[in-house]
């Protein structure tokens, strides 16, 4: 599992869909959607502040402040005011442990 960092357990997600973790000193938002895990850098590329509380729908997270929307899979910015993608993380699950590595 070289390059990956263990950040959470699958069991952490019983009854919740997201968790804020730190990977290599970077805040990352780990999200569970219908048995799939996604991980994105928890910083909006528009205003530089957290996406943590943003609503999630159709695998897209919306910034709670100005409405920028990002694809959870690719990090792509889908609408204004964001124009830059956010970094995403590769998620690996092994023995109930969740590991992340920046893509």
């Amino acid at each position, binding site marked *: 599992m070289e390059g990956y960092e263990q950040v959470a357990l699958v069991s952490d997600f019983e009854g919740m869909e997201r968790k804020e973790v730190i990977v290599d*000193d970077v*805040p990352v938002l780990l999200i569970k959607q219908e048995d799939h895990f996604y991980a994105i850098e928890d910083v909006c590329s528009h205003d*530089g502040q*957290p996406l943590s509380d943003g609503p999630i729908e159709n695998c897209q997270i919306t910034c709670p402040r100005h409405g920028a929307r990002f694809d959870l899979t690719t990090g792509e910015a889908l609408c204004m005011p964001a124009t830059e993608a956010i970094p995403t993380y590769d998620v690996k699950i092994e023995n109930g442990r969740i590991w992340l590595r920046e893509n």
Partner: protein
Amino acid sequence: MTSTTLNVTPPASFAEDVFDAFLATRNEPAWFTQLRRDAYQIYLEKLSEELDPEEWKRLDMRTFRPENFEIKVQTEAGASFDTLLQDRAEFAGQVTHVDARTVSENLIEEYKSKGVIFGDLETVLNSHGELLKDYFMTRAVKPDADRISAWHAAFCTGGTVLFVPRNVELDRPLHSLIALSGAGAADFSHTLVILEENASATLLEETVSSTEDQPGLHVGSVELLVAANARLRYVQLQNWNQKTWHLAHQCGRVAQSASLQWTVAGLGASTAHIHQDVMLDGKGAEAQVNGVTFADRRQKISYYTKQAHNAESTRSDLLYKQVLRDKSKAIWRGMIRVEPEAQQTDGYQRCDALLLSSTCRNDSIPGLEIEADDVRCTHGATAGQVDEEQIFYAMSRGIPRFEAMHMIVEGFFQGVYDRIPVEIVRETLSQAVIHKLGID
């Protein structure tokens, strides 16, 4: 964002029992211990309050883990430091602090005989306690100013004191070095400069780490008290390693017809936040504030500056220049505040940012609050990338790309270098820029 930094119980390494044990190790006057105890109570109160969002919301503190740092009982033996300034000039006095302990201090006899006091805070507290009582965190940075200043006042580990009596002019600079060597070491050093009427001095201060990869914490405070007709030049060169957190509350107070020239350089630290106030309290007081920042990798360097015009015919002039590369971030929030009685104020502030990558970020927010009606106040901020045509032009004349980039960055900083009269500081900054560009 700031709500995520809220924590009503103090970090384990700064808990009440640790504070009491820390006090037991100190050899200080009773009034100073009481100041610490009061400050600790303020710190506990401030922990339950949100940090001022205007000051902190642009700075991501979510990865800050104060419990991972502690004030070391012993310093690392034999640690060596790659300082930028120490060996570059003949200083009239030097103070060196390592891991929050003073390891050396000296001042030439000529200055001592004139009544100049320069040395470690704890020593001066015991030799001239009554003098410091009037100044230490009573006029410039007060313990209740914010959480950082309360935290600092409670755990202040020492620092550098400079006192220059009336009519004494120091023609040679003094040097103060603050160093961190151990992993997880915390430094709460305080810099207190007191210039009496018509005195003058130059103090160069730098911060440095002994290694590239050991995390550290600096919670500092700087107080610059410049009495009437006095002239102070103060330089702080922040050059920690990129695992260190640098949090500081700094304030200069300038009395009638006095002048303060204050230069801050932000080169190191993983995250640095400096609250910098300049108070122009007397008629004709002047302050020039210079800032040089070069951030790379994932560094975050933040400044919250205030130029407060509290009296008539005062003048302030702030110029910050910031260069960013990689995924770094620089924040500057500046304010010129003019009180109703401060007529004939001349205030200026400007922050320029040069972005060397598409992934770095700069937030510059100038501001004015003016309550007088006969003033001149101007402000501005710029941010831009290097013009590829300039690089192409240089390369077409045989200058390699990296050298062209170096010339452009040096040219960008030149505007602020020209304002720094201390040659070794200009040279040192220039060398640091070359190092940051990776071409040395």
